[in-house]
């Protein structure tokens, strides 16, 4: 058996109200990839943050190269050869690549940073590991995949022999993700050990040597790709058998409900975020919008729901034309919205479930009369939503902030669906919630479609798009690349479009 680079021994970590890690043990061997799999909130990030010295474990300890250590901070872990690429990149955007790589461990010449030496070392590293990069590029100008490469180089520069990657593929196109997996494989050839966190089963099976599955902070299984399958892993993750694919019938599209004509929208900084996008969504169909995050999806959803003004173009909902509109005007047209950020736009945390259940129509009958809320009616309504949408809560009078992510989302879905709606705009409807809730919400979205609602589904999870959509639109850099029928599309085709590559032109 080869050398054990990194280990956790019975590590526990408690946050206010949650036991994020409960007696977790694992071992990483030199030259191997350990996949850490688990649903959102399972405790994966917490665990690796402990391994990296960001958090101190409440119980248990970390073992680095056979030695029991008490890490005082990330610098301690770094000096022992642990490198980490965080879920959210830890790069200084306006600084250059070389500065970002050496930051905190700068080569010094006569009291000043020796940038020449730094550049030389970065170039040498990028040659040795086949990670091409321009050391003088400014980080904020680089695409996400390149920024990730900077993060990896940052760890290698510090002589890491363990590389921890927290959900590294979430921000990548499928092709970029595959490329990254290849890079990780090559790194292990040079003797590194890799801890690779994901909630994507396919990636685990593709790249891992060893698999550790976490659920509710506990290790619930250890296995290898040879011994398991996607279904087996999913079952371990969730604790019961799950359906990875929803059954759905063939769509029967009717009249056009939403029509966009050369819609252009600016982002918060006044840059064009959507450039002359045109498409339509019909009754009884789901149009999925695919794309790597940050390619205009947010602005699209905000424009359609009235949260953001249009800079040019036209939007038609039913027979009404909008060039600008308020959220209420648009909601009155029968548009329901499941927002991307449920904490910020979906719910008011300090309000009770009852109040939250009527946020979109408290001002109308039967919920208010002559300017006064009718508490009893609202309470009955909330109880109905909680029942029908399986929101797990002790009562309807508790504040919404006390719910778990999945239950918050079910409450929002319940609120939005309990009215007659013509158009549903669902943005990242299952982000960060448990598989049980995901199944439930997917089922409900399909039911809405079958009732004749037009559905616009925006998601960064390609599997979700592929699983639910009848047609698929792909956004790249604010442009609509193409709209495909679900039957003619597959992961590869959409992945290329997500990277801005069409058949005719092969570069972005």
């Amino acid at each position, binding site marked *: 058996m080869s050398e054990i680079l990194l280990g956790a021994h019975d590590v526990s970590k408690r946050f206010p109200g949650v036991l994020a890690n409960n007696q977790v043990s694992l071992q990483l061997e030199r030259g191997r990839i350990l996949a850490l799999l688990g649903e959102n909130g399972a405790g994966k990030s917490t665990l690796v943050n402990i391994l990296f010295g960001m958090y101190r474990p409440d119980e248990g300890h970390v073992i680095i190269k056979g030695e029991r250590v008490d890490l005082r901070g990330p610098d301690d872990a770094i000096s022992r050869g642990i490198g980490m690429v*965080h879920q959210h990149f830890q*790069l200084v955007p306006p600084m250059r690549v070389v500065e970002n790589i050496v*930051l905190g461990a*700068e080569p010094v010449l006569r009291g*000043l940073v020796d940038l020449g030496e730094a550049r030389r070392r970065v170039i040498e590293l990028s040659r040795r590991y086949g990670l091409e990069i321009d050391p003088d590029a400014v980080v904020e100008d680089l695409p996400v995949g390149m920024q990730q490469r900077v993060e990896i180089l*940052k760890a290698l520069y510090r002589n890491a022999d363990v590389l921890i990657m927290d959900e590294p593929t979430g921000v990548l196109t499928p092709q970029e993700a595959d490329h990254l997996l290849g890079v990780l494989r090559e790194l292990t050839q040079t003797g590194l050990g890799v801890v690779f966190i994901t909630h994507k089963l396919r990636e685990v099976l593709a790249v891992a040597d060893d698999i550790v599955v976490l659920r509710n902070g506990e290790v619930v299984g250890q296995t290898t790709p040879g011994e398991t399958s996607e279904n087996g892993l999913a079952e371990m993750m969730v604790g019961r058998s799950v359906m990875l694919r929803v059954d759905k019938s063939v769509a029967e599209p009717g009249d056009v409900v939403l029509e966009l004509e050369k819609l252009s929208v600016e982002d918060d900084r006044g840059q064009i975020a959507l450039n002359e996008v045109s498409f339509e969504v019909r009754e009884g169909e789901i149009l999925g919008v695919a794309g790597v995050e940050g390619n205009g999806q947010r602005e699209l959803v905000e424009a359609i729901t009235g949260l953001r003004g249009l800079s040019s173009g036209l939007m038609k909902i039913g027979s009404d034309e909008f060039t600008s509109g308020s959220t209420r005007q648009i909601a009155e047209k029968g548009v329901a919205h499941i927002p991307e950020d449920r904490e910020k736009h979906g719910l008011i945390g300090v309000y009770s479930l009852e109040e939250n259940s009527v946020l979109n129509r408290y001002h109308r009958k039967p919920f208010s009369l002559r300017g006064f809320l009718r508490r009893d009616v609202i309470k009955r309504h909330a109880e109905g939503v909680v029942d029908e949408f399986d929101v797990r809560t002790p009562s309807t009078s508790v504040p919404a902030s006390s719910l778990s992510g999945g239950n918050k989302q079910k409450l929002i879905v319940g609120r939005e669906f309990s009215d007659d709606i013509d158009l549903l705009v669902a943005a990242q409807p299952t982000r960060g919630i448990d598989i049980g809730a995901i199944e439930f919400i997917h089922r409900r979205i399909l039911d809405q479609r079958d009732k004749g609602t037009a559905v616009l589904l925006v998601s960064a999870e390609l599997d979700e798009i592929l699983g639910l959509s009848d047609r698929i639109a792909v956004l790249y850099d604010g442009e609509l690349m193409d709209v495909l029928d679900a039957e003619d599309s597959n992961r590869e085709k959409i992945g290329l479009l997500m990277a801005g590559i069409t058949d005719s032109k092969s570069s972005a």
Partner: protein
Amino acid sequence: MKLHQKRLLYAGLIVLLVVIWIFYAANGPQTTAVLAGTVRAATLLALGAMCGMIGERSGVVNIGIEGQFLLSAFAAFTVASMTSSLFLGTIAGIGMGLLMGWMLAAMAVGLKVDQIIAGTVLNIAALGLTSFFYDRSRSLGVGKYTNIDLGPLADIPLVGTVLFSRPPLTYLTMALLIVVHVALFRSVWGMRTRAIGEHPGAADTVGIDVLRLRYFNVTIAGGLAGLGGAYLALEAVGTFSRAMSGGRGFLALAVMIFGRRTPFGAYAAALFFGFTTALQNQFQLNNTFDIPPQFVGMLPFIVTILVVALSGLIGSMRDPAALGQTYEKG
């Protein structure tokens, strides 16, 4: 800086020199007086701007520079008059600046008080304390810092008087501009400082102690404002009077922004603002315009408002991303 910007800069400089030369030919003494006044007014602004930029580059807004000027001027003046030593007075001014910088750091970084409120506390405290302890009968027995001629350089017409025949703290400030520039952009300290102002989380993950560095920087920066206070009392004016900083701590922030949070940029901006001050003084002296002097005195501030508004329109530079935010680990 891009190539065309550089060309524009050089072209601008040449035009400026030509204009100065024409004015000098037309009226030597007046031109010399205005330019010397420009440098004099710019020194204080440059010190304040450097204080501000070290804080802001590390993510901490300092609107307490005005108060730091004032209380340091008071300390410098009081100690100098008691000990009859300008040097000890200067040290006292710097010391008071450091102390106030440390207080700002303790509030804004340590206790995570809102940075604007923390700065305002300094301003109010300085005004109150100096007014309360102000002693009209005290004076600077030794007189203020006098000009030091830099050998033959001082004999060059115009330039000699304006640049090479100045009192010591002015020279010191010019040297500090270079020191701060090199430190900010070439040293390890500077690189880390810029990193914690842009993305403290990233700095943290590579083992940089964000809060400690901010604490240190805000304190050290206070020393620069303290030197400004000493300059004001012991070199520019030669006495202390109530509220004598007269808004220049705030003006220094405008100078800092206009100078893109770089020392040389700030000095250029400080010279520009200093020029409006010097011009205004000259107007008042000569009674150039037949309007009440208070209105002429507003000139530098009107120009400030215009320039800041304009530079906002041009959108010259964005703030450090973490400016004004407290940092929580994890």
